[in-house]
């Protein structure tokens, strides 16, 4: 009977085995399904990150050059140390030797050389070391210690174009500027030397190593002309040493394409040592980042709208400026006390007369003026291929009353970026075509020299007609030849332009006292503009200059040298600056007594200043207020520490 009983036990057990087998297959199915569907995507992502394995060969990052192929950012060899811990025979000794050369603690080096890994980087001390360090290490002839070829960025021109170019981190990854914006195009693809190992983690000797060569990044050719950029950098350096401003910026653009020819910011930095400056310095590319009230340069937009809408005839219509204009009970003053008197509208433009522009704004009405402002691209990012662009602020349509309309007409109450102004003025002078600004022109395969990607100018829309544009060019040329922009005059290049003095809004929301951004926007030649240049100086200190003469000459210098460098021919038919003082309209000396020295920048007159005494307050002047003298003549002011008594 025993046998039979046992057979029954066996059959019971077999049922158990059967159930176990079903359970096991079920578990496997569920697990594989779970891997495939639930955690699959996450695992694939995670694994792709970790796919960089074995010995990595870094690609060479694409170089950045100007439009003529001159290298702005190159690469230089910067070796890195790698160790293969399994091959190191005496880790303690190796760690000590490496620590000494790499200037790091021995215990940290020891951790690297004993790490359980196929290949280990000594990070960050052993990454991108100097040639001397690399030589010292290879001279030690240590088993398992390798010097890997790597490269780092090299900036042949130092602080040149720094905020635009940006910089890279320790792994050659773009961190700022163009390096970040075009990181993908510049960075290329890693190569590797893979050796096969089996599931038991041993190298398989029969299988050949697989070498995947790195793919170098694309070279990037910019619209920047390094000659123009050099001129801009030089002029800003001079301005900084002269005026010690809070900041300064300059942009030069080709108005026919929107291509940025030059762009600079002060304070500047050397991208090779970006850690040495405050992050505000390298992260703020002022020409596209800063937003402020534009001041009088904005009058060009009001002018363009009025001309396009045929709301005014510059030569026939007149305006009588008595020094202020009342709008809904608010009194808006002209910068010139007492006013400019009876003028044609051309003279209103030349004199940058605020009440005259208020009148133009009123002729247009809020709908029309603001639709032109929007059409010219204000209130929106321009779309330039750089990171950190500002948007600016316009009045909300429902908040625009007569006062807002009036102040907007002469450039107050709106907030704009320099690049917006440059693109808008480019459109105003190039026949009415508003372009999207761009700075990357071509991407080039460094091996073959083939162009992998070419950027075409992007026309956004047409905002005004050619005839309006021509009228604006002529009016602005006369501003430079005869009006407040005289400092920007360049013989033969027919420079047109407009000054601007913008008050800054402080933290409490009200205007800051004695703190201005002085700017000038210019273009040349006026018959067919090749270059639009904008320069702004933020809060020039120790100013003993009138506003019109601080920035306009900087733009004049930039224009003169740049157009020459670009090979633009001199014109003969432009408006002539009048050299005979007698034939020239005389300038009325403004009343300066009781003002502060820094207020001088607010006066749009072409006179030079000499000082006597010291202090902030002007207690006397010579000649007396109201006296008419020749353009460019001297006004002597007497300074004192204390305010003069009121008479």
């Amino acid at each position, binding site marked *: 009977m025993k046998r039979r009983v046992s057979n029954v036990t066996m059959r019971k057990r077999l049922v158990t085995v059967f159930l176990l087998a079903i359970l096991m297959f079920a578990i*496997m199915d569920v697990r594989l399904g779970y891997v495939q569907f639930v955690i699959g995507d996450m695992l694939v992502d995670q694994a792709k990150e*970790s796919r960089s394995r074995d010995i990595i060969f870094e690609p060479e990052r694409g170089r950045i050059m100007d439009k003529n192929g001159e290298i702005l950012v190159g690469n230089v060899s910067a070796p890195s140390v790698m160790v293969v811990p399994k091959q190191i025979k005496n880790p303690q000794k190796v760690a000590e030797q490496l620590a000494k050369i790499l200037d790091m603690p021995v215990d940290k080096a020891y951790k690297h050389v004993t790490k359980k890994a196929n290949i280990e980087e000594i990070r960050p001390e052993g990454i991108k070391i100097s040639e001397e360090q690399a030589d010292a290490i290879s001279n030690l002839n240590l088993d398992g210690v390798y010097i890997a070829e790597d490269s780092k960025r090299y900036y042949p021109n130092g602080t040149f174009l720094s905020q635009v170019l940006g910089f890279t981190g320790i792994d050659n990854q773009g961190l700022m500027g163009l390096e970040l914006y075009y990181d993908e195009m510049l960075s290329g693809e890693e190569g590797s030397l893979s050796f096969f190992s089996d599931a038991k983690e041993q190298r398989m000797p029969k299988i050949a190593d697989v070498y995947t060569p790195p793919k170098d990044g694309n070279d990037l050719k910019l619209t920047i002309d390094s000659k123009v950029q050099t001129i801009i950098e030089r002029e800003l350096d001079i301005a900084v040493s002269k005026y010690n401003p809070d900041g300064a910026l300059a942009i030069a653009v080709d108005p026919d394409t929107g291509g940025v020819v030059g762009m600079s910011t002060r304070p500047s930095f050397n991208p090779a040592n970006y850690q040495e400056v405050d992050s505000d310095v390298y992260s703020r590319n002022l020409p596209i980042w800063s937003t402020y009230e534009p001041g009088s340069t904005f009058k060009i937009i009001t002018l363009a709208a009025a001309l396009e809408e045929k709301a005014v005839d510059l030569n026939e219509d007149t305006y009588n400026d008595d020094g202020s204009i009342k709008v809904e009970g608010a009194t808006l003053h002209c910068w010139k006390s007492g006013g400019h008197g009876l003028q044609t509208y051309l003279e209103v433009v030349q004199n940058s007369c605020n009440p005259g522009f208020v009148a133009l704004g009123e002729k247009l009405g809020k709908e029309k003026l603001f639709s032109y402002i929007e059409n010219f691209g204000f209130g929106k990012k321009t779309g330039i291929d750089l990171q950190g662009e500002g948007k600016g602020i316009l009045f909300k349509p429902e908040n625009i009353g007569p006062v807002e309309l009036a102040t907007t007409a002469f450039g107050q109450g709106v907030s704009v970026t320099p690049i917006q102004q440059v693109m808008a003025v480019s459109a105003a002078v190039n026949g009415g075509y508003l372009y999207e600004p761009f700075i990357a022109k071509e991407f080039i395969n460094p091996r073959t020299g083939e162009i992998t990607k070419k950027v075409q100018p992007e026309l956004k829309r047409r905002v005004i007609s050619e005839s309006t544009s021509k009228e604006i060019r002529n009016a602005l040329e006369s501003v430079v030849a005869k009006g407040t922009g005289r400092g920007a005059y360049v013989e033969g290049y027919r420079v047109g332009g407009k000054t601007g003095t913008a008050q800054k809004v402080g933290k409490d929301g009200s205007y800051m006292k004695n703190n201005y951004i002085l700017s000038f926007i210019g273009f040349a030649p006026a018959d067919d503009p090749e270059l639009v240049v904008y320069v702004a100086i933020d809060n020039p200190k120790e100013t003993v200059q009138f506003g019109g003469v601080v920035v306009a000459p900087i733009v004049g210098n930039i224009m003169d040298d740049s157009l020459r460098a670009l090979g633009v021919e001199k014109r003969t038919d432009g408006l002539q600056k009048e050299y005979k003082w007698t034939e020239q309209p005389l300038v009325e000396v403004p009343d300066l007594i009781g003002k502060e020295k820094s207020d001088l920048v607010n006066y749009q007159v072409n006179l030079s200043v000499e000082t006597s005494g010291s202090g902030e307050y002007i207690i006397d002047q010579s000649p007396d207020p109201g006296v008419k003298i020749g353009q460019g003549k001297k006004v002597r002011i007497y300074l004192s520490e204390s305010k003069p008594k009121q008479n």
Partner: protein
Amino acid sequence: MKHKWKDFDFTLIITPLLLSAFGIVMIYSASMVLAVVENNPANYYMWKQLIWFMIGFVIFILACAFPYRYYQKFVKIMVIGILGLLAGVFVFGIEVNYSKSWYDFGPLSFQPAELAKIVLIIYLASIYSKKQNYIADFSKAVLPPLVMTGIILGLITLQPDIGTAAIIFLIACSVIFSSGIRFKHLFILIAIGVSFVVIAIPNMVTDERIARFSGAYEPFEDPKDDGYHLIQSYVAIGTGGILGEGLGQGVQKLGYLQEPHTDFIMAVIAEELGFVGVMIVIGMLAIIVLRGIYISRRCDDSFGALLSIGIASMIGIQTTINLGAISGLLPITGVPLPFVSYGGSSLVIMLFSMGVLNNIAYSVRSKEGSINTDTKPLKEKIQHIRAIQNLKEDNHGNIKDN
């Protein structure tokens, strides 16, 4: 006994052959790049597997026809032979992947540990079926075969081939459990097994093995090294989705999966044929395993029953360890997927086992067929007579133990 075609278990004939053929297709897809990298023709591994399949097919047919009871007669010779082969491998074998576990015969090489699995199954089935009558006696019935199992396990562990040793251990457990030994004895056995592991572990634990365990559970801790294989397997499975990338379209076999045609072939299947492909393969393996257990249950002859359960266990356990490894449930030990993975010794042994199982199935069916035509009391009568006979033979049976 005259052969009747209807007595053949066609499911059990067709399924393994289909799986093997499918395996050859997948081996071609998985190994073509690897073969070219090694300066061989793209179909190098496929051809080798095809040759093995043809050898295996002949053996399969022979085993189908060969009455399984005769194996019992050759058990001693087989055990001595396998011990010799396992010992000889230390002298004459070649080292592959740091394990000395292969005999090299020119173009084809042979792994005695694979043969040891089926020999051990035959041995255990034979000895426990002979001792069925006094299976409750520990020292007499249970213990002696274990000594032999221990020797075989030891020889394989020394190669070292931990994966195969683990499989053999689990197969032995399954057969012993099914043989109906008392639970008390089963626990004693487990205790012995555990203490063996505890003693052996300090000698077996190497950094590499620890790493392989951590690699299985935290692959992303060290993605370049210990977790590497599992991560690549995850990527293959994860990219597959429901229908996969298409046959031959996988990329993980291009150097990312280190052994795409052997241990990780299921990952390639998952990538190229998706979850559907995986389900079909697992389904076919499940059919074989469950069918084997079913046959074991129907088999009146305890040798046949234990042999069936041993073969079914071997396939089931090997499948579990392989799939567990590629899906991150178990550490990676280098165990092939039955029928599908590249590897001649494994395929031939699997096909041989299937032949044996088919023969058992045939005998079960033909017997059941003849019984069905008979009357039921006769079956009981026969069993009764047999039981009495057995009692006579068994002088030492512990009758009290009931």
